[in-house]
């Protein structure tokens, strides 16, 4: 991609000032996290999928570094670097470049260098209030930049609801965590549902029958020795990081799964019905409650929280009439854990929202925090915003 024209630079700078003005006025501290990040910490936090799109390099000392693919993890790290203060609630805002490899080639809607302007709130005690504020401030910032509020399309998702649904359904704990982990990949999720509804044999992975028998007879504290004896008998040499105890632990899981009845087809259908939901946001909780009730599941409390959030949005003056809820939404954003949203503007491709964000309670720990720190944040894709204001990209 060629260097940006002077006019584009000037417009982006002016736009950034308006956006940052909204953020700082709302009480968010302006920060400039490092552009160059240690690859190890960063990529462990964001996962291999984003790694494929991250520019990684080795410096003259042999350290593995990367150009940040977004500003959320760098802001988490900046917060943690404040040491004891990291325990206190904090609110940050930023505007700066991020870098992503575009496998299909870079273009105006998918540049390899782009500027993100965003906010992050860490440790806020009232989660629903923090989420509502985050969304309201993003809408304010887009409006201050020149977009018409009435033209914005809000789309909501809630990974917390999906987890609540999975927690309410009766199944072995290992299946539940597997489905939760696979939620990010629709095709893998569907394949897993299909696998779990099959009988034990079709679910695959059986340990040798003699080993299963020996493990079943042994007391829990003797099971490691059973595995060791089996490996010795089969002349299987051990090496590397994974220990006998870890094999035993997973073998127990496999034996529990083998004994478990298949996942009822109705349960799989329930999951599929949830992810297929696509409704105006005010109809979402009714629809979800109905789907859950048909399977005898009570989601009253998680749905109360969902509705409370919508009320808080309305109280902050957000227009929810055109806002939609999608059961599927949030699946491509791996580190989100709860409420998620995207804001689309006219003139941009459907899959290129101008802003998005949500709750990511696990990310602080992945970024090195010894304790969980609740976090919610959002960012604006500033080049897309400018394009939308200029009348869209062709």
């Amino acid at each position, binding site marked *: 991609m060629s260097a940006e024209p002077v006019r584009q630079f000037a417009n982006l700078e002016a736009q950034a000032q308006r956006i940052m003005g909204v953020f700082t006025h709302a009480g968010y501290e302006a920060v400039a996290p490092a552009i160059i990040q240690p690859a190890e910490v960063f*990529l*462990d936090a964001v*996962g*291999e*999928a984003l*790694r*494929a799109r991250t520019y990684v390099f080795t410096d003259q000392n042999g350290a593995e570094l990367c150009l940040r693919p977004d500003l959320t993890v760098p802001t988490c790290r900046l917060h943690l670097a404040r040491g004891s203060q990291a325990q206190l609630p904090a609110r940050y805002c930023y505007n700066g470049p991020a870098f992503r490899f575009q*496998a*299909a080639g870079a273009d105006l809607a998918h540049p390899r260098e782009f500027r993100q302007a965003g906010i992050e709130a860490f440790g806020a005690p009232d989660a629903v209030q923090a989420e509502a504020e985050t969304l309201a401030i993003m809408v304010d910032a887009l409006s201050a930049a020149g977009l018409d509020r009435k033209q914005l399309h809000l789309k909501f998702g809630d990974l917390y609801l999906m987890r609540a649904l999975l927690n309410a359904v009766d199944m072995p704990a*290992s299946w539940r*965590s*597997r489905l939760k*982990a*696979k939620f*990010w*990949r629709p*095709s*893998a*999720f569907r*394949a*897993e549902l299909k*696998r779990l509804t099959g009988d034990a044999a079709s679910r*695959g*992975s059986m*340990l*040798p029958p003699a*080993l299963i028998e020996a493990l079943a007879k042994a007391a829990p504290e003797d099971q490691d020795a059973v*595995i060791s004896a*089996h*490996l010795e008998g*089969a002349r*299987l*040499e*051990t*090496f*590397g*990081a*994974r*220990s006998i105890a*870890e*094999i035993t*632990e*997973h*073998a127990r*899981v*496999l034996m529990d799964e083998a004994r478990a009845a298949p996942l009822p087809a109705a349960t799989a259908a329930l999951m599929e019905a949830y992810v297929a939901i696509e409704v105006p946001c005010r109809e979402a909780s009714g629809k979800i409650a109905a789907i859950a009730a048909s399977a005898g599941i009570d989601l009253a409390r998680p749905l109360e929280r969902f509705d409370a959030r919508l009320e808080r949005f309305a109280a902050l003056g957000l227009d929810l009439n055109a806002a939609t809820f999608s059961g599927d939404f949030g699946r491509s954003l*791996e580190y989100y854990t709860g409420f998620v949203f995207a804001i689309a503007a006219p003139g941009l491709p459907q899959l290129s929202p101008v802003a998005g964000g949500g709750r990511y309670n696990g990310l602080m720990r992945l970024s090195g925090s010894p304790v969980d720190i609740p976090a919610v944040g959002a960012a604006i894709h500033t080049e897309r915003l400018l394009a939308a204001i200029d009348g869209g990209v062709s």
Partner: protein
Amino acid sequence: MTGKLVFAVPSKGRLMEDTTKVLAQHGLTLRKTGHARGYRGSFDELPEIEVAFVSASEIAAQLKSGAVHLGVTGEDLIREQIPDAEARVNFIAALGFGHADVVAAVPDFWIDVRTMADLDAISGPFRRTHRRSLRVATKYLNLTRRFFADRGLTDYRIVESLGATEGTPAAGTADLIVDITSSGETLRANALRILDDGVMLRSQANLVVSQAASWGAATRALEAEVRRRFQG
């Protein structure tokens, strides 16, 4: 632009010998031009074609960029180096040599891990125990990412390995590998086992056409002539 059709052939070893043999079987007698160690050549039957001797992995890159019109190289290298291979090249013929499977393999003593689903199941507990993701040593970064992503496995890290990949689990620099194997002997020697559903690609040498090369009437006619000899 000379307007010549450039045909890339592997420049050394077994691959070059097999390519020469198979081309001859299809009526294309390869001859090096200039001195014996030169990097250019021609076919006796179609002297208008310019043959370039290039390393097999470089052939994939040149087919992608369009620096050569036709080439013989492994499907594994094409799929690894050209993510959207179907849009950039055409496979004319599988040539029946250079067979190799790209596979995911784990330490044989991981008796509880037989499938990709098992690998997925242990990835979370592994991270909690060792405070890091499973490490996968490979030179096939793109094939690995695509295959693992298709199967919903996300909690892992790739360690790029440019040689002796099969030794990395024993050396402790990786936990499992993705590599090519033909007989499986090297994997066995390193106490590794292919996952039941861990064959990612069954590769062999292919005759491949670049869509990015500059094509004219004359080069198209020559390509059709080559095609006819293989698809005849």
